[in-house]
């Protein structure tokens, strides 16, 4: 996978993850072009399209579009399910996730994505294992705050 973008129906980027080195300018251009292309498509259309030399796989969940750019030999359907699994992870973590959760907790959205995909490839597809890793991190955070409270005493 070359990159993943999350954007709203209004075209606002909510999350962007780039797995290939690109300049900031180029990233902005790609996001702009692609968001436009996808928003212009009708709801019943196919989830795949050829775009430049890439295959784009996208799906809309409520007000958010999830969009991945994969290479020619990559499998479109499994990429579609990568998107779905990521949505499931967010949903489980936030408890029926909505766009606002991702806006206000963008850092968590990134952390969860890093546990699931790394360098553009699936790292861990088990929902339990990914969430366990994130929970552990949250736990570490809590331990710290508890310790902090202790030291304040």
């Amino acid at each position, binding site marked *: 996978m070359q990159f993943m973008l999350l954007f709203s129906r209004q075209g606002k980027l909510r999350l962007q993850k780039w797995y290939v080195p690109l300049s900031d300018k180029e990233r902005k251009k790609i996001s702009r072009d692609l968001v436009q292309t996808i928003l212009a498509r009708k709801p019943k259309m196919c989830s795949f399209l050829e775009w430049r030399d890439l295959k784009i796989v996208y799906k809309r969940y409520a007000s958010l579009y999830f969009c991945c750019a994969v290479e020619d030999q990559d499998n479109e*359907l499994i990429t579609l399910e990568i998107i779905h699994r990521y949505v499931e992870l967010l949903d489980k973590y936030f408890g029926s996730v909505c766009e606002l959760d991702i806006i206000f907790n963008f850092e968590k959205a990134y952390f969860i994505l890093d546990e699931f995909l790394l360098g553009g490839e699936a790292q861990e597809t088990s929902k339990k294992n990914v969430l366990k890793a994130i929970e552990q991190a949250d736990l570490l955070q809590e331990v710290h705050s508890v310790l902090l409270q202790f030291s304040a005493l």
Partner: protein
Amino acid sequence: MPAVSKGDGMRGLAVFISDIRNCKSKEAEIKRINKELANIRSKFKGDKALDGYSKKKYVCKLLFIFLLGHDIDFGHMEAVNLLSSNKYTEKQIGYLFISVLVNSNSELIRLINNAIKNDLSSRNPTFMCLALHCIANVGSREMAEAFASEIPRILVAGDTMDSVKQSAALCLLRLYKTSPDLVLMGEWTSRVVHLLNDQHMGVVTAAISLITCLSQKNPDEFKTCVSLAVSRLSRIVSSASTDLQDYTYYFVPAPWLSCKLLRLLQCYPPPEDGAVKGRLVECLETILNKAQEPPKSKKVQHSNAKNAILFEAISLIIHYDSEPNLLVRACNQLGQFLQHRETNLRYLALESMCTLASSEFSHEAVKTHIETVINALKTERDVSVRQRAADLLYAMCDRSNAKQIVAEMLSYLETADYSIREEMVLKVAILAEKYAVDYSWYVDTILNLIRIAGDYVSEEVWYRVIQIVINRDDVQGYAAKTVFEALQAPACHENMVKVGGYILGEFGNLIAGDPRSSPLVQFNLLHSKFHLCSVPTRALLLSAYIKFINLFPETKATIQEVLRCDSQIRNSDVELQQRAVEYLKLSSIASTDVLATVLEEMPPFPERESSILAKLKKKKGPGAVSVTELDDGKREAGELNGGGDRGPDTASTPSPSADLLGIRSAAPVGAAQTNAVAVISHFHSYPFIPYLSCCLSASIPALFCGLSLHPCPVLWPPSSAPPSEDPAPPLSEADELLNKFVCKNNGVLFENQLLQIGIKSEYRQNLGRMYLFYGNKTSVQFASFTTTVSCPGELHKPVEPLVEGGAQIQQVLNIECITDFSDAPLLNIKFSRYGGALQNLTLKLPVTINKFFQPTEMSSSDFFQRWKQLSQPQQEAQKIFKANHSMDTEVLKAKLLGLGTALLDNIDPNPENYVCAGVIQTKSQQIGCLLRLEPNAQAQMYRLTLRCSKDTVSKRLCELLAQQF
């Protein structure tokens, strides 16, 4: 699990985000952001040391601002500080900031690398994972240098936690992708391959991506993975849906891993071991069988996951292309999908069937779905699906169904989306030609094409129809009649006028018997379009008119009158004016015999590959393109003669060398007295105007300008006793001298105390002319000055020997590139100074393959499509090398332009990189070449990648160019 409220949610951050969301306008948002930036700046600069929490909060705000699309130019140092915090969340935010806002600031990279090193050696798996994620996200060369040797150790160590192994595998993959030279697997290879056997499915899932990438690059070293992959796949495929617990996704066991395993197997040919192969075929059959089973869930996720595996299995079956039974089953399965209610499946089935159509085993099976595919072309609502349907129709076309498919494609063209029309036109034109049984059908099809989609009919298409009509006399009368009828439409496309002008000018006589298409009617019809046409078309029409004068003497007066009118003879366009003047003169002074000879019917074209096929290849990516683009008209007369592919060769020109680079002296001036076949040079600026094949006769020489047969300036008769010594071996610096001329055409090739050799050269298509200037730097005469040019390993052909007298003499070499080559021709020079010893030196003539480049402009999508199509390993040559010269952008651009290719902007996602495209023109073929140069200013290195349709060319260009930068 409402983690949001957990731990230390950053209240300040939430408030800030709310503020931004409440901003009513863009201006208000920018104002709020600037206020926040000022605040953060003052906090970071303030005297009071910030605690970790505040630092984290502010870094996080900066990150948010950056993600909104604003530039952030500070805070990096604070983020780096967070990395060494022992609090997990602070560290985590620090890493996130670094991952998102990578900055190649070398000072910082050192600090970051230090922090990463500490975390990697911390033995704390959560910290290790964070560090590995950061490396994988940034993936810079500096990081590869620092960690590429450490990570394989972590990956295979027995005591590494599973989660760390997973991160390590993918981290290594990322580094391998950015800096393959730094990731050396060597001793780790076998242990990495054995990760396929790991107990933990997550480890296998992560490791297999790494193994696949490494296998693509080093298939031999990793080939043991095949049997391991097959047995792993077999276990998954045969497992019940509950066996794999959380790795089962909507009742499908391990879909991601299955797809990756099938993908890995596509790096290799079918297993040789019978048992392994048997097991694999069994797996593939099971996968195909499962597709027929009723779904275990109604959820789309279930069917998607299941079908993802199915499509990947079909890809593998097509890749093997050796199991007819499986191929046909795959085809039937795809056939079912063609009518599925899910658009996604229809799209993928069309796409996948396209590759099946090219297999001899399944071609027939694919053809049975023709009606469904035609229906898809007509009824699909999504243009991307229709495009796939058109591709598939093209792929499944053969003699048996060509008429049907071409008719369907033509009728689709009338309503087709603009974005795909040109490609459709090319496809129709190719199919019509390829499967034409009777040529009247072909002519009808192409004229229909021009009628329906004239704007999208490229030059190549109408050139081609003319080539075919000229070469086949059974269709000429029909073509004349049909085009005459087509021209009668009130509005017809200019391309139709071009074809009409050409064909009626050649074959109008074949229909002149019918009073409805008498010569004058034909002429008036053509001339009624004249004023609506562009200059090149008018020029063509003028040539058609002069041909009419020859074909139908009764039209002479009318046509002369047209030519004589001010709008022709005083036309502001020089080309039109010249034609009008010259044709008028020609028609009034030449005798009928001379006219008949000058304006004779065009000779047949040499058989060659279709120029439209080449065009499509160019659009879709080159293969071995071997086409003349029919713009011979652009060539100069002398060159055309020299090409030897039309008309008799000039008498005294030695025949071109059969192979390699034919270098020969041009014919002496005397050739003009022999029956030189020449072309009227005023046609040059427009392609494909009828060449008037004519004999030069003394009565009209003034009309013909530019008979450009360049003689060698023989300054002195060849020395009667040329030095008999063998030519010296090339100078040791010959290669270096040659390299100076790769990107330029003029300059001093060689200089010593005695002699200076300057070079001026020009190239066009596969031909070139080189002027050599020999300067005598001494005050005494050189005697017996001879030069000999030879092509290494091939034909040795002496050039006219020269004897030098005084200051500087000139020699001209005409060059023709017959086929691609690596070795430069040698130039041997011998002379003796008065009283001195015989000088004997050999240089390499700076004739390199890139001189025959024609630049090719193309869009980004074209570029990448072609790039992909040149993906066979031997077509690519790559070199990574240190910069030898300035890395200044302007200098680089000048060099790349000098190379002869087109330098393409806005193609490479990274604007630092350079991307070029060109076609090398040799006599026998055209070779498409794509180039990518990636400078790394920091490391003072380059990576150069070449992909050409011919592997020897990739290699040679890569060698040549690596010396240039």
